[in-house]
């Protein structure tokens, strides 16, 4: 576990780490030439059939070829993907957080705060000097400015009295700013520790699961080489399985390197034989994932259908032999076993319906991938699942080739049903808007329902759903970066309602690799300051319309539309109205979901401008 302090992080020589990463890359390249010499100069040269022919000669050539191939694989998998890339990624991650510290620490010190506590739970509190200054009615200028009073000049006059009257506000303002710095510092250290632990895990796992080397020539060679070849044939599938299962420790960027180093035949074989591993894995290009996921979706629907038949048969048997009911206190009652089957059957039927609807939505009448008729862009299925509330990641347009990517993260009540209905409607609206009000470039719009969202408002007061989904959202953004063809896209994360809590929590704990963050109708984003998000504050946007009920339920931190939060606010209309004047609550509730209504052009246009990099057009 990472024990890095903020001073350790500040003082790291990231350039040395980066140089070492480049050195390992160069090492791998140079060493690959040596492996090639075995093939060219030995196997195909001095030791060719013309100079050395026999069964043993064939064995020697085979053994040397296996040795060279193994070294090539090792150079790719270990020296490059794991060692070099881990160093480069760690250098980038540490350097990004150093940049945050360079900004933050002087602010903390210049405002009279001090850092206390452990590296994973830092506290930022007023120094004794600052507290003394406040108590002596001589607060610093910045604090007077925050409270809106004149700084006393040392004489017993109105300003001094006013300071005394505002003493509680001064103290509260000081602690509030300290709290923001604390959030910021904790976010910096959380992301740095996360990057550190991730990099360490990649290297540790490497040593624990490495395949064997080819056997040495000698009496036992014939006995051993068969096993070696057998393991070799399974190796790629096992690596893919470990990656998909999260056991490899590889980042999406490293997964992408690994994937690119496979041959076309190896990639095709993985998609065909193990689509369930390829489909959900961040770092694998979108086209391949879509192909794999559509196969898995077919199978899943078939599998659920099979289980429905089984359950129906079991229930029919119980009905026939009378075990579907038992004699209870008030007569015949449904037996527990039968009731369980009823529940299971209902869940299965719902899952099948949801998956079939999703499949219908992204498939055309001929059974081919469908295009969204609003923009002509294809649908891509990047993931789905029926666990919990259900998960679905669907893109309109290809994020690997698009100029802009907008990932919409929905909130409370999101479920698999929404992936082909309401949530998809919003995603399609965003896609159409980006096309309509965009800058001419292509925007891929993603419905990212890659976390188990809270089912109701009570559950939504808990941030555990966001905490649990943070690593997935981090991975998703890193995957988008790693598979991008050409220049990286302009990536925006758009959270709605609890989805903003999801985005903010991921950004301030794990880190997200995004250019812009947009909070729509937020109940708080898990941090009190835009500075803690790891994205330039000028690229943090928020909007809550003036009728939205959410403004009264700020349960996850400071309102991100507030000046105190430190981001930008954009306008949204509140077009929905109550069904009757006396039903005052209806408008407030309805307008929480009005941001993508056809008659809320203000909000939609603003969102489009942010997503397509036209911030100057945001109102």
């Amino acid at each position, binding site marked *: *576990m*990472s*024990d*890095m*302090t903020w001073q*350790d*992080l500040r*003082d*790291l020589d990231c350039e*040395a*780490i980066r140089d*070492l990463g480049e*050195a*390992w890359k160069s*090492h791998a390249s140079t*060493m690959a030439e*040596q492996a090639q*010499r*075995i093939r060219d*100069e*030995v196997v195909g*040269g*001095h*030791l060719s059939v*013309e*100079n*050395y*022919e*026999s*069964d*043993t*000669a064939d064995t*020697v050539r085979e*053994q040397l070829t296996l*040795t060279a191939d*193994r*070294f090539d694989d*090792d150079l790719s998998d*270990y*020296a490059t993907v*794991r*060692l070099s890339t*881990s*160093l480069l990624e760690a250098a980038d991650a540490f350097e990004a957080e150093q940049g945050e510290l360079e900004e933050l620490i002087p602010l903390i010190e210049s405002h009279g705060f001090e850092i206390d506590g452990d590296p994973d739970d830092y506290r930022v509190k007023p120094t004794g000097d600052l507290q003394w200054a406040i108590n002596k009615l001589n607060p610093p200028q910045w604090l007077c400015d925050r409270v809106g009073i004149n700084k006393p000049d040392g004489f017993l006059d109105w300003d001094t009295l006013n300071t005394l009257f505002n003493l509680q506000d001064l103290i509260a303002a000081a602690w509030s700013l300290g709290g923001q710095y604390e959030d910021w510092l904790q976010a910096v250290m959380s992301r740095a520790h996360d990057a*550190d*632990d991730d*990099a*360490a*895990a990649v*290297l*540790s796992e*490497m*040593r624990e699961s*490495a395949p064997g*080397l080819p056997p*040495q*020539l*000698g*009496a036992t060679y*014939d006995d051993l080489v068969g096993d070696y070849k057998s393991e070799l044939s399974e190796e790629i599938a096992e690596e893919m399985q470990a990656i998909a299962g999260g056991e490899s420790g590889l980042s999406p960027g490293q997964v992408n390197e690994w994937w690119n180093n496979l041959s076309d035949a190896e990639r095709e074989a993985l998609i065909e034989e193990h689509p369930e591993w390829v489909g959900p894995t961040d770092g694998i290009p979108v086209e391949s994932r879509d192909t794999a996921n559509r196969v898995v979706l077919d199978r899943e629907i078939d599998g659920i259908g099979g289980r429905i038949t089984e359950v129906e048969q079991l229930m029919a048997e119980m009905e026939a032999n009378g075990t579907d009911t038992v004699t209870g206190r008030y007569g015949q009652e449904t037996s527990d076993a039968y009731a369980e089957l009823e529940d299971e059957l209902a869940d299965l039927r719902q899952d099948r319906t949801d998956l079939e609807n999703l499949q219908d939505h992204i498939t055309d009448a001929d059974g081919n991938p469908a295009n969204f008729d609003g923009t002509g862009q294809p649908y891509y299925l990047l993931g789905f699942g029926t666990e919990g509330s259900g998960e679905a990641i669907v893109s309109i347009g290809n994020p690997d080739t698009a100029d802009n990517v907008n990932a919409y993260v929905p909130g409370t009540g999101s479920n698999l049903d929404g992936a082909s209905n309401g949530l998809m409607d919003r995603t399609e609206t965003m896609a159409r808007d980006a096309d309509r009000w965009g800058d001419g470039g292509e925007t891929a719009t993603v419905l990212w329902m890659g976390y188990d969202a809270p089912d109701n408002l009570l559950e939504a007061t808990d941030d555990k759903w966001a905490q649990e989904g943070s690593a997935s959202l981090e991975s998703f953004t890193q995957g988008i970066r790693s598979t991008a063809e050409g220049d990286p896209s302009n990536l925006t994360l758009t959270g709605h309602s609890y989805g903003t809590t999801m985005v903010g929590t991921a950004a301030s704990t794990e880190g997200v690799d995004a250019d812009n963050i947009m909070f729509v109708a937020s109940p708080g984003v898990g941090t009190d300051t835009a500075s803690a998000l790891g994205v330039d504050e000028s690229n943090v946007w928020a909007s809550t319309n003036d009728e939205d009920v959410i403004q009264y339920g700020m349960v996850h931190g400071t309102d991100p539309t507030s000046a105190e939060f430190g981001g930008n606010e954009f306008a949204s209309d509140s077009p929905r109205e109550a069904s009757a004047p006396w039903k005052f609550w209806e408008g407030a509730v309805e307008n929480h979901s009005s941001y993508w209504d056809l008659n809320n052009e203000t909000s939609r246009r603003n969102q489009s401008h942010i997503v397509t990099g036209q911030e100057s057009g945001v109102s």
Partner: protein
Amino acid sequence: MRCSSGATFASLERGPLMAGADVFTMEPDEVHKSVEVLFDIESAVDRETASIAEETAPVAETLSAAGTAFGPALGEAAEWWKLHRAGGFTRLAGTTGEYLATCAEEAVEVDDYNAGAFASHADHDRYPDRANATASARPDW
């Protein structure tokens, strides 16, 4: 077989590696050249790997001193790479070279290679850096 004089023999007595073979040709000088290449690869990879490991050590130490989890993992990974993966590759290249050197020197294929055979029979004028002392350190000596 073509021995160093170019004469060809056939149907030699075979050991485990040669079971079922009925054709055997060898150009010993070419085999010697392949051994030279393998030994050169072995030393080049060992040298380069030692270099990258040395370059890694101070960075790993600095990272470790900074309380990172990455630092110790990096140090161990570099050593592991040197000893087990690049090291494993050079061991295979080296021992295969020794096997071939012995075959070429004796102008026949040997049934079962061991370092002692190389030390006893190989032409050390060709491979001045591979002394008996090196071979004697091997467990199969």
